[in-house]
């Protein structure tokens, strides 16, 4: 049985969704129909031209982990930003781990989607926001049909979460092949603020396939910063679908750090539904071997006087492949838009490749949109400058790549996180030159 059929039959036989109230039940039934009709995306679709899911979906995946496993904090400590005081929402093979987590209901809700979907006290928020921001594409719909667990973060009007939140998904490899479908809902009401760090991490070499959906609502003047660390093992594949609804004067940033994994696809969609929005999309990709990272971004400017800033940098070695497909849509009423997009890449090896494709669809006449894309090797003049100061070729190249990638980090607002990412980049590029990181 192929994976699609397995998912469909699993949905039919599963009783879990029957416990939900009618409206959710209807949403899920509707979603599975969409997935049944559309199936997994194929390379025939324009948006998936350079990324094939075939090698993943022909495998047989378990849809739930049969045994519950516990892991010791000391064994996974390195995957946390552990020198930073945070709330933590931790899942092991898709199941919530209370002893690794630190949640709160003190003025804000930092807890579980499973609770939010089933307990009456959350119903008002769920009714308004759950599955309302995400478009009904096949992968998001697939996730919706199976959605039962993930992070639920609700920040009411005027509140700021007093420390960042880490969301961690561990997979233990107890199942030879495991498919996970976490679902996060983040609602920041008017003037609310929240910072989130998310990571998916497999703990051994067994295959894991994650189809994650995150919906983010940013109310008027809300500020949301979301950081994604994608540094997984060679058999881990991730499709991250993140959908963001921005209201007047809100500012949302999403930083994506892609340093490892078999196949990573980021569908990052910003919908500017208010005026004076600022949307910030940043990414650093550093991969090698046969790894594949695909950034598929959309910024939909639906209202006037807004900004968007996209800056994606990639370094590709060996046979690694990258894709950047950045779409900016400016509706006819969305005048006075400033939309910037840049995608710069370095191909370290002759066999590495990147497909970079900006798409601008502009229907307003008073806008400023710029996009730039470069694919190149390292700057030889800069390398000579370093060598003339005594820095060897290998170290010079590493330092230049480090500098190239590290430049994106200026907008990271959490110093401990910035330090960690800097270190990850330095390690990744084998820059070990004894300077402060």
């Amino acid at each position: 049985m192929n994976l699609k059929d397995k998912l469909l039959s699993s949905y039919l036989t599963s009783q879990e969704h029957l416990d939900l109230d009618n409206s959710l039940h209807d949403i899920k039934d509707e979603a599975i129909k969409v997935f049944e009709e559309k199936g997994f995306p194929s390379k025939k679709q324009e948006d998936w031209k350079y990324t094939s899911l075939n090698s993943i979906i022909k495998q047989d995946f378990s849809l739930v982990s049969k045994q519950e496993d516990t892991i010791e904090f000391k064994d996974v400590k390195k995957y946390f930003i552990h020198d930073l005081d945070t709330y933590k929402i931790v899942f092991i093979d898709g199941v919530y781990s209370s002893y690794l987590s630190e949640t709160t209901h003190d003025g804000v809700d930092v807890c579980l989607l499973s609770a939010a979907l089933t307990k009456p006290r959350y119903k008002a928020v769920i009714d308004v926001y759950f599955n309302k921001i995400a478009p009904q594409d096949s992968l998001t719909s697939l996730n919706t049909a199976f959605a039962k667990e993930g992070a639920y973060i609700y920040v009411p009007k005027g509140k700021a979460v007093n420390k960042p939140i880490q969301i961690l998904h561990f997979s233990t490899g107890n199942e030879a092949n495991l498919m996970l479908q976490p679902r996060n809902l983040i609602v920041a009401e008017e003037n609310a603020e929240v910072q989130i760090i998310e990571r998916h991490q497999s703990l051994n070499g067994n295959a894991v396939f994650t189809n994650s959906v995150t919906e983010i609502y940013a109310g008027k003047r809300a500020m949301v910063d979301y950081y994604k660390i994608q540094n997984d093992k060679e058999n881990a594949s991730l499709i991250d679908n993140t959908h963001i609804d921005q209201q007047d004067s809100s500012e949302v940033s999403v930083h994506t750090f892609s340093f490892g994994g078999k196949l990573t696809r980021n569908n990052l969609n910003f919908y500017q539904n208010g005026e004076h929005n600022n949307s910030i999309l940043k990414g650093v990709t550093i991969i090698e071997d046969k790894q594949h990272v695909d950034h598929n971004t959309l910024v939909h400017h639906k209202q006037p006087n807004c900004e968007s800033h996209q800056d994606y940098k990639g370094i590709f070695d060996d046979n690694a492949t990258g894709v950047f497909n950045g779409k900016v849509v400016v509706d006819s009423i969305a005048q006075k838009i400033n939309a910037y997009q840049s995608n710069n890449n370095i191909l370290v090896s002759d066999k590495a490749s990147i497909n970079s494709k900006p798409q601008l669809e502009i229907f307003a006449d008073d806008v400023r949109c710029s996009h730039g894309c470069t694919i190149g090797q390292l700057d030889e003049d800069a390398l000579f400058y370093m060598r003339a100061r005594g820095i060897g070729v290998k170290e010079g190249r590493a330092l230049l790549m480090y500098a190239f990638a590290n430049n994106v980090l200026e907008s990271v607002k959490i110093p401990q996180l910035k330090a960690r990412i800097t270190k990850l980049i330095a390690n990744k590029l084998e820059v070990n030159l004894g300077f402060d990181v």
Partner: protein
Amino acid sequence: MLEIKNLSAGIEGKDILKGINLKVNAGEVHAIMGPNGSGKSTLSSVIAGKEEYEVSAGDVLFEDESILDLDAEVRAHKGVFLSFQYPVEIPGVSVTNFIKTAINQIRKAKGLEDMPASDMLKMIKEKSELLEIDRKFLSRSLNEGFSGGEKKRNEIFQMAMLEPKLAILDETDSGLDIDALRIVSNGVNKLRSKDNAVIVITHYQRLLDYIVPDFVHVLVDGKIVKSGGKELALELEEKGYDWVKAELAAG
């Protein structure tokens, strides 16, 4: 310290330097002057080891050893320093991290451990004060958005940190206002000693009012056509390069 013997070199098969002879001893300051296109920057690039230049004849000895087959970084390890006419911008690497990296790479090549952080900090403080460099400047990305004067001051700061045996200052005066010129020259003068040597490459005499050379050489069309003491620079300033060219033509 440095001996250039009958050096011819160029790019893509066309010689720019056509038989240069020059001997620089420890403790000396030599100025190489010449009009645009005479080969001044080619000479500094060849000594520093820029690979796109091909040497067609002659040799360059540093401390009695040919350095032409050595990589640029190895020449730097031996104590050759080039202050660039156009320092390269490297966004994402701070001045401090860059210089620390360079120092530790040179130490590593000599079989030494990394310089202890406290020594490094002390040295950075001392040398940045010498060049009147602000602390904030040191944490900025290397040369990115620096003014012409800041770039050159940063070059001499690096020279001060690396303490080379031979420093080649390629058009260090270009882009400097009078205050920056004074600071940069003052820095160079303080670094002069009986053990090191400086080659100042310049188009104008102005810099030589501050860094007073022991010898002045005039480079025209890839050859040193005239050498003399510091007074030669003044004569050049007064009479222009055409004077040397005319003298040359007259035989």
